């Protein structure tokens, strides 16, 4: 009995410590935006919305959120379209060297990280005139996300029965009709997963835009956020708190949406 009680006490103590560890760093983001004249210290907010005024006053805050959106959605569309086509072809047709190709793709996506490739990517962007080009950044980000996307989607398509397509084929549908009428509707959940995964990836990405976009008007929120707290002088905490909050909310909403709709599948879930 004592053992049981001690166990309970131990359990709740551990949980309390864990909760504190994971909550305390986040408290500031919850309180400071609603506190007039915030400092680094967490205080009980007085629920003012004046701080959000700071965002409107700042010349780059709102545009940077728009830039983040543009980059994320652009990359997601490109990645979904190209990975779906490639995954379908690889799933349904035994192209020569397919297995080796898939293995190579998986290997590449794991080893060629932003850190390892920042030097040549920077070089490449300079040579191709892609510095300060949002399209260029979208292409580079897509190139990095595609291998994993193809791999996840192919897995999804492999688990879709082929008899649907064969059935359509016997009825006389052309390959393109089969893709449009049957395959795309069937794999829609997979496409949505990849889209969300790509958006989340790009939305939070700091290194690539930091490296390749020097024009402050084109920079996404990640870079502006970093600039805001590292540039000289006293940091504008009213702006930082509200901007950080605004920049975070879409990710949280997206996560809630995905976990509600698809029940947050572990594989193929969102990762930074």
């Amino acid at each position, binding site marked *: 009995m004592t053992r049981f009680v001690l166990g309970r006490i131990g359990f709740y103590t551990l*949980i309390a410590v864990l*909760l504190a560890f994971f909550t305390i760093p986040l408290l500031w983001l919850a309180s400071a935006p609603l506190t007039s004249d915030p400092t680094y210290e967490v205080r009980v907010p007085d629920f003012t919305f004046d701080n959000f005024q700071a965002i409107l006053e700042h010349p780059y805050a709102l545009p940077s959120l728009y830039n983040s959106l543009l980059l994320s959605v652009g990359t997601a569309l490109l990645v979904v379209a190209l990975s779906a086509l490639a995954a379908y072809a690889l799933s349904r047709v035994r192209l020569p060297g397919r297995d080796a190709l898939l293995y190579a793709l998986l290997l590449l996506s794991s*080893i060629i990280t932003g*850190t390892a*490739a920042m030097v040549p990517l920077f070089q490449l962007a300079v040579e191709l005139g892609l510095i300060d080009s949002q399209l260029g950044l979208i292409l580079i980000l897509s*190139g990095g996300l595609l291998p*994993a996307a193809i791999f996840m989607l192919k897995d999804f398509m492999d688990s879709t029965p082929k008899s649907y397509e064969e059935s359509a084929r016997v009825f006389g549908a052309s390959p393109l009709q089969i893709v449009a009428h049957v395959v795309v509707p069937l794999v829609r959940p997979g496409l949505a997963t990849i889209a969300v995964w790509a958006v989340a990836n790009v*939305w939070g990405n700091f290194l690539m835009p930091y490296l390749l976009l020097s024009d402050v008007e084109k920079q996404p929120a990640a870079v502006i956020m970093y600039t805001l707290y590292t540039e000289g002088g006293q940091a504008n905490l009213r702006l930082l708190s509200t901007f950080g909050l605004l*920049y975070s909310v879409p990710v*949280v909403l997206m996560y809630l949406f995905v976990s509600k709709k698809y029940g947050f599948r572990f594989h193929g879930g969102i990762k930074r």
Partner: protein
Amino acid sequence: MAQATSPPDLTRETAEPTARRYSVDAAGLGRWRAGAFAAPALLLITVFLVFPALWVLYLGLTDYRLTGTAAADPKVVGLDNFLSALGEPTFWNSTWLTVQFVLGSAVIGQVGLGFAIAWLLRDKRGPLKRIVEGLVILAWILPSAVVSFLWVALLDADGGTLNALLGTGDYAWLLDHPMLSIIVFNTWRGTAFSMMLYGAALGNVPPSHLESARLAGASGWQQLRDVVFPHIKGHILTNLLLISLWTFNDFTPFMITAGGPDGKSEVLAVHVYKVALQSGQLGYGAAVSTVILLINLVVAVFYLRLLRSKK
């Protein structure tokens, strides 16, 4: 760049026998059309992923610089960059810090804490579990620029919340313990992945096995050792390799300490950025990148072999 999610099943694909009963081309796509479908994606991957990786190998052999004469007319200098890196204390310093970072925050921090949380909550239901998991996941999904600043604020010497809580006055955590700071930060940041992976793994341990162990009178620790651990061994290894790879390549420490003070938290990822893009020694930076690539390769090959041998 892309952080791959753990791919579910490489093995299913390769194990498929050549002479399957069903057709190899269900939609009648044909090889040419299939090739055309795959081409655009492969082109982008080749130009923006494969080519840079190959080019970094070449750049590492040159004296390429961002500015000056070597920028206009780079020369091949062979293994000079690698040799000078080996003789360079800052390189060894960064390597040692990276080892601390990976071991401390990934292997001990994320795996340990992630497993602990998954184990504590394994047969819990209801709001408590949802709140704990939700907070851990929140730390993982928020943009890195935001969480970095939150930790800068938390650890700030002048009015940071941590000092207020501990009553440590104006202790400058980021200046006096930069490595410890980013290790604790990264543990906080990345535990969610391990927690979810172990949560899923523990859910797959057959309840009948645990029950028969309990009937045999095994203690909690004995159940863990004799029933749970053998079942999730594969998951632990997968998890270790993936998060080591991710942590090793993580650039987020740059946003908290920028490698400082005095390079005391300059892990390799930050080191490359500093030497190549801030000091402009592209050739030397590329040589360090090559080292990173090779280490990544070793871990990734190990990981993929593990995936294949699972079945």
